């Protein structure tokens, strides 16, 4: 698996260049014109990224989520859902680095082979940072009316979180 993931990008680049030369495309000029478009894209997404990183980070700094957990605790003690996973589940759609940091903490405190460790691993692998992706992709083409996209994205995340819990329970319960 490790070798495959190392070889795939070089192979992909090789294939593109090879095919380009074979089809008598001026590969160098094509690269330059594409790269120029890429620079314009970066220019377009820069404000979006600064805006999102700023808002998400001061939100995390405020420790608001940790504060809210106290309210949720009574509801969760009746279920099998481990408390420690909740901040990660809540942060997953907003920030990839934040949820990764929480997963890291869970590994340190409980170990990667604990139930909550496996649940965190599954969760990290199963959804992406919906809000960030929407802001970035729509921001890059200046679409402001995003219609039902957030609703669908968050619904998918919620289903993913529930599925992760059920599937981890089925696979790893002794």
């Amino acid at each position: 698996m490790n070798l495959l993931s190392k070889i795939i990008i070089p192979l992909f680049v090789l294939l593109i260049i090879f095919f380009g030369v074979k089809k008598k495309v001026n590969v160098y000029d094509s690269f330059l014109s594409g790269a120029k478009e890429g620079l314009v894209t970066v220019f377009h997404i820069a404000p979006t990224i600064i805006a999102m990183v700023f808002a998400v980070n001061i939100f995390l700094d405020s420790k608001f989520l940790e504060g809210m957990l106290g309210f949720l605790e009574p509801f969760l003690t009746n279920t099998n859902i481990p408390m420690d996973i909740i901040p990660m589940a809540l942060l997953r759609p907003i920030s990839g680095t934040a949820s990764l940091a929480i997963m890291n903490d869970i590994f340190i405190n409980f170990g990667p082979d604990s139930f909550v460790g496996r649940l965190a691993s599954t969760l990290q692998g199963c959804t992406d940072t919906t809000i960030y992706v929407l802001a970035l992709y729509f921001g890059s083409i200046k679409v402001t009316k995003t219609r039902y996209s957030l609703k669908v994205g968050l619904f998918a995340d919620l289903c993913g979180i529930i599925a992760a819990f059920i599937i981890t329970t089925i696979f790893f319960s002794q």
Partner: protein
Amino acid sequence: MVNIIWASLIFIAIIYSFFTGNIETINNGILTHATSGMNLILEMMPLIVLWTGIMKIAENSGLLEIFSRILNPLLSKLFPSLNKDHKALGYIASNIAANMLGLGSAATPFGLKAMEELQKDNPKKDTATEAMITFLVLNTGGVTLIPTTVIALRMMYGSSNPTEIIITSILATTVSSFSGLMLDYMIRRKNR
């Protein structure tokens, strides 16, 4: 919608920290987080420029078209509003493939390019099209086959079987992507 979330995040953060006396951290944050945003852009920039350059070669040589034609049976069901030669399909296919392989940094430039192509025949430039939303649902569902970062971290913390979560991740991803696509499909049908 992003508008409201953005405002709420900032609003909650500042008001909450007034109450908890955490205002010092927020104050520092306001001054430093723009820099972290800028650093992220600087990290992404060379990758985006490199990949859009390389993919331009694939586009000009017709390879991108071949690539999208392979995935066409699947893509034409997901994107009924695009005709099968649409340029965006090649980039969508590349984006999904890169995501599946856990190559997140390569996936983003493809995704941005796909959005750009979709925007070209959008009659209302400030409003998302159905195809854009379907694409983003597919994208945020995170169709990752090999969660490389998670496996690496599990290894680092001494898991006895770091890759055991691949199958649970794939199953959970499938549920999440599928339910997103279902809701997307239902909304599209209702709008018609």
